[in-house]
């Protein structure tokens, strides 16, 4: 049994913290909210230099050959400083290609970051639904994943719509699931192919690049990734956004604790009052629970793949709620100033509100935890 970080993992995390410290991400986030989106730094070159695009790609194809937990460490560091690096889109996409024997041609360019991929997120069937579904705008029922028609050996034409896809704007290639004769298959689609439209958008949190994607008979290459691998990409995305959220919780807690030690009322530091102390330990409690679930997800992806959906969904559920709670606590511990434009707390609050609604939302992840456990109970 060993659930500690290895020396290499500690180094990876410290190196990430160092690389990200060269950017003024929080200032840029505030400026971008004021309408100056050009203030957001292009951090992709720094990510490429650090080798992050190839984290989950085998060494034989130019990647680092690392696992989900290592990627979560990097995403956690991004979350700490609200860095908008498009890894949430790139990494699950790279994992699907890495799992496909015919995805190899793309892998080296994805590993170096010379080409950037965006993942087309599709939620796998559950105990209550046998459909693959995607995020949409409004409406109660989630639409089905894009459909494909065969267009000769290894090729297909793909049609469908996905909304609020993380990191889609500016991606070179889209990778995800399409339904070919009702069977899920992995597909790669060139972003500049005819029939592909990506409408860039932001919502509430300017650091997060999103795109509405429309595919109309877009030419796609069909990958031979297994259905398990396609589902695992969804859960990987859940684990990554959980890790990113928990990184943001770390900062929210650090800043709040620091302030609670310095700010005095009625002759003593506010952190000495139980009301404040207990609300900060609640943030810590949720953070520690989230961290433990990141270990679970990191271990399960290869250590016990059958548990990966449960582990990653639980991490997402706890991570999403933890960030919402941490951001609200950050604001209330700081008092009125915490709710103003002067302070960083609103940036974390905005991140919390948007993140919880992306990639199916934390509510769906919570439901998935229940579904996985009910299925386990049925099997027992």
């Amino acid at each position, binding site marked *: *049994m*060993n*659930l*500690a*970080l*290895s020396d290499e993992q500690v180094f990876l995390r410290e190196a990430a913290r160092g690389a990200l410290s060269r950017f003024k991400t929080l200032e840029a986030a505030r400026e971008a909210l004021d309408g100056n989106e050009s203030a957001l730094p292009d951090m992709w070159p720094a990510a490429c230099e650090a080798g992050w695009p190839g984290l989950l790609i085998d060494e034989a194809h130019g990647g680092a050959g690392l696992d989900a*937990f290592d990627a979560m460490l990097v995403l956690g560091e991004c979350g700490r400083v609200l860095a908008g690096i498009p890894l949430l889109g790139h990494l699950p996409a790279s994992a699907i290609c890495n799992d496909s024997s015919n995805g190899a041609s793309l892998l080296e360019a994805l590993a170096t970051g010379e080409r950037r991929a965006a993942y087309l997120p599709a939620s796998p069937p559950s105990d*209550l639904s046998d459909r693959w579904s995607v995020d949409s705008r409004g409406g109660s029922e989630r639409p089905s994943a894009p459909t494909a028609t065969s267009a000769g050996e290894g090729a297909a034409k793909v049609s469908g719509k996905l909304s609020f896809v993380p990191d889609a704007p500016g991606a070179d290639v889209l990778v995800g699931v399409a339904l070919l004769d009702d069977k899920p298959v992995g597909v790669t689609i060139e972003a500049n192919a005819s029939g592909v439209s990506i409408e860039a958008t932001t919502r509430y949190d300017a650091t997060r690049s999103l795109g509405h994607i429309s595919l109309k008979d877009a030419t796609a290459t069909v990958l031979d990734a297994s259905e398990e691998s396609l589902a695992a990409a969804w859960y990987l995305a859940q684990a990554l956004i959980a890790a990113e959220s928990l990184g943001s919780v770390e900062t929210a*807690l650090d800043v709040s*604790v620091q302030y*609670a*030690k310095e700010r005095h009322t009625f002759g*003593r*530091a506010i*952190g*000495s*009052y*139980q009301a*404040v*102390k*207990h609300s*900060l*330990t*609640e943030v*810590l*409690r949720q953070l*520690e*629970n*989230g961290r*433990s*679930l990141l*270990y*679970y997800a*990191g*271990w399960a992806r290869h*250590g016990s793949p059958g548990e990966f959906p*449960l*582990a990653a*969904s*639980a*991490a997402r*559920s*706890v991570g999403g*709620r933890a960030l919402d709670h941490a951001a609200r606590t950050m604001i209330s511990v700081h008092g009125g100033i915490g709710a103003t434009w002067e302070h960083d707390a609103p940036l974390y609050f905005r991140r919390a509100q948007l993140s919880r609604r992306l990639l199916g939302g934390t*509510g769906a*992840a*919570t*439901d*998935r*935890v*229940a*579904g996985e*456990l*009910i299925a*386990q*109970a*049925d099997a*027992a």
Partner: protein
Amino acid sequence: MDLDDTPEQAAYRAEARAWLDRHAGEAPVLQGPGAIEDEDEIIAARRVWQGKLAEGGLAGVVWPKEYGGQGRGPIEQVICNQEIARAKVPGILDAIGVGMLGPTIIAHGDEDQKGRYLGAMLHGDEVWCQLFSEPAAGSDLAAVQTRARLQEDGSWRLTGQKVWTTNAQFASYGLLLARTDADVPKHKGMTMFIVSMDAPGVTVRGLRQISGEAEFNEVFFDDLAVDAGAVVGGVGNGWGTALTTLMYERVTIGLGGEGLGYNSTRFAGAIAGDEHARRDPEVRHQLGEIASELLAVRFTGYRTLTALQKGQIPGPEAGLAKVTIVNGAIKAGDLIADVQGPDALAEDSEWAYMISFLPGLKSAGGTEEILRNTIGERVLGLPPEPRLDKGIPFSELRSKEGAVA
């Protein structure tokens, strides 16, 4: 990062499993057909079984070999617990003695005490109880009022009351925290004693809880005579000795949460059995939230084990796991009762028992409020609440509180 046994751990697991395979038939049956029903017979049978587990090396796994233990690490202790659970046989009866009080005596006791008491404790020949909490000393344990007065011949006389004492009704000995000097600040005037529970002057009374069962006792001491050799860790050093016990209590709770049966699999099973509830979005949402947190605690336990294996001592943050487990189980009990209706509250329902047990558990092993204070101060580094008892002799403090000293 892995959850696998090392080759040495795998060998230990195989050894434990082989012993259990050979001896499981000798274990007392406590549930189902053929179960022993008489309370006294259950205790007697479990004591015998603890002796066998000790012979087989499945009790006192982390105790040093010279005191009859296995001299192994906390991981092996967990492996042992897992194998006992897997074999569906009871574990040791005296988990408090072997898990917390024995290690305290090993750390602070003298050679006479170690030689006299440890072997009989480990084998279940003499069961122990922990006599720390009092009606007016729980969260503020250093406020104990049980008074030990030194006699001219060097012996002591003890008078006072203890409460929440598990196993006192059949314990042979207890480890008791008493005040020996009321004229110094409260943390300084205490001493730890070993007391015989069968001696004249000791009265044990069962304390019934919400479920109607008496799982704890209150214990009264009326001028109990204790000889000088009963002091553990030196006169006036009672607080330091008690902290050792409390540290082992944290380890026990940190590693034992799963053992309480408050886990996501069990709760999901109760929901899965209801055709309507298992499809109800609100029920699923609540189950998902509860289960996620309980799953987290399982891996927090593995993180604690990893730290223990590296020789680190678990800090107060282990208390957060207790908060999560208790509150998660309370919500689960509530959810299951909502789904099952009044049947969940039937006399023989496992859920009725759990629902009744949990409000008390919220205060056991440190109330949630005290745990959050300690964690806020020791982990987050927040300033402490101003204290009005610092440096004040205990006797003055008592008169300020308006109590009769």
